[in-house]
């Protein structure tokens, strides 16, 4: 199993959700997060004072999937969330040791 974490632009959450469902994903977790990457945030100006190390609002998507599905999920996120502008985000793929569905006690792929 893989845990895929994607940091994307907030307005890309909806297109990515649709693409993931299309790819066969059963569920996902989305949180509002802030951070910055190589561009060091967006410069903002308040009355001439520049603040250029601001954290930029982002969305963090977490999806746990079977190993076979992982490449399709990564590709779906990558193609959907790409705007070719700075700050499109990153995708991280982690090995997932165990998954448990709390209601039924199922584990592994069955819990996904």
């Amino acid at each position, binding site marked *: 199993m893989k845990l895929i974490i994607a940091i994307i632009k907030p307005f890309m959450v909806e297109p990515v959700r649709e693409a993931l469902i299309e790819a066969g994903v059963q569920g996902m977790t989305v949180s509002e997060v802030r951070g910055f990457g190589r561009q060091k945030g967006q410069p*903002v100006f*308040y009355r001439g004072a520049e603040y250029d190390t*601001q954290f930029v609002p982002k969305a963090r998507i977490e999806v746990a999937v079977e190993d076979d599905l992982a490449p399709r999920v990564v590709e779906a996120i990558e193609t959907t969330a790409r705007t070719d502008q700075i700050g499109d985000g990153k995708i991280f793929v982690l090995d997932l040791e165990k998954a448990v569905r709390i209601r039924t006690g199922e584990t592994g792929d069955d819990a996904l």
Partner: protein
Amino acid sequence: MGLSSRLGRFGAAFLMAASLAAPAFAQGAPAPTPDKGDTSWMLVSSALVLMMSVPGLALFYGGLVRAKNMLSVLMQVLTIVSIAALVWVGWGYSLSFTGGSPYIGGLSKAFLSGVTTSSLAATFSNGVYIPEFAYIVFQMTFACITPALIVGAFAERVRFWPLMLFVVLWLTIVYFPVAHMVWYWAGPDFLPNQPGDHGLIYGWGALDFAGGTVVHINAGIAGLVGCLVIGKRIGYNSEPLPPHSLVMTMIGASLLWVGWFGFNAGSTLEANGLAALAFLNTLVAAAAAALVWAGIEQAVHRKSSLLGAATGAVAGLVAITPAAGYGAPGTSILLGAVASAVCFFFVAKVKGRFGYDDSLDVFGVHCIGGIVGAIGTGIVAAPALGGQGWFDYNVLPAVPGTYDIAGQVLTQVKAVALTLAWSGGVSALLFLAIDKIIGLRPARDAEREGLDISAHGERAYNY
């Protein structure tokens, strides 16, 4: 007529009980009765000016600080207005608007002694009066907002009660004398018989329609001195200190703009065509200034910001204040535009260059905008440019005086220089003395935690 004896047209009103109005009126002539329209306009204007401080200024400033200091700014403005109102009734009105010396009035009307519902205050027209209580409350609102303006310069890093002590002393030693020097005069019906009965700066012939010198330069320079004495905020230039709610700031700026019509158009003291002109000038100057600031930002930063446009509007309002009743709409637009550009330069460039932490740009907008407006008044008031000129009240009835732009500009510069020196110098002494004796700055931890919790024990926002 030499400059030294020129008398500006709308400097202020003299107040005199109707029973004292002997010299100008023929024996047996009926005592003047205030016009109900004038009286209504003055009461409405007074309420509008109060709206500028609470809620206008409080929300404007509050939105510009960080969330942890929001309440402290609201509290400072609210309390300063309350204190100033009481001090005004106690001794402020008397020190500002009774005769005495050219520098300060006397205490004959302390605690409004002798003022009744039938007491009258002069306006700028021969034979036209308003109730003295209306004049007292109108001028009171100016005394309320001026010290409240100062706190923006050192917002987020000042102790509450020492600041309140400063306000009482500053009003007494700085504001009342300046108001007296700029605005006090014997009134149109009395001046011919009492030619020396006016404040120093008024006697020079300086023009200040609604308080460019008394309010904005006065408060602005005191703010600069205060932020220098208190020092920079912890984290200034090393961590972001952005405004926490520009929506609040927009609400505050909007209330300021609306209230400013009472400030400027009310300063005519009558509901007439001149009040309408001052109203119109106020509107167009602010509009031009807002657009100019937004335009400069577009050119410099490639984006026009709301805070920039709102700041520009305030800068335009400040600049038109001394000129509101003197300029023409066309010249008022130019004055607002120029002031906006100059204020932008000070806020965006000069402040960074010299590194003072004028938190909310009290110096950059109010003092600089006030100076541009005060000096510009000398130009836009010229009848040759469509201005209203000045009236010579040394004769009864008053007649228009001969206008000399260069001479008037020089007089305006003199008035500005004296105000900067007096307010800057005395404010510095007051700040230093209070800082030395009881301390003006909160402890580091208290400042880090935010003044809402450390000084007032409450939060602006509970999620």
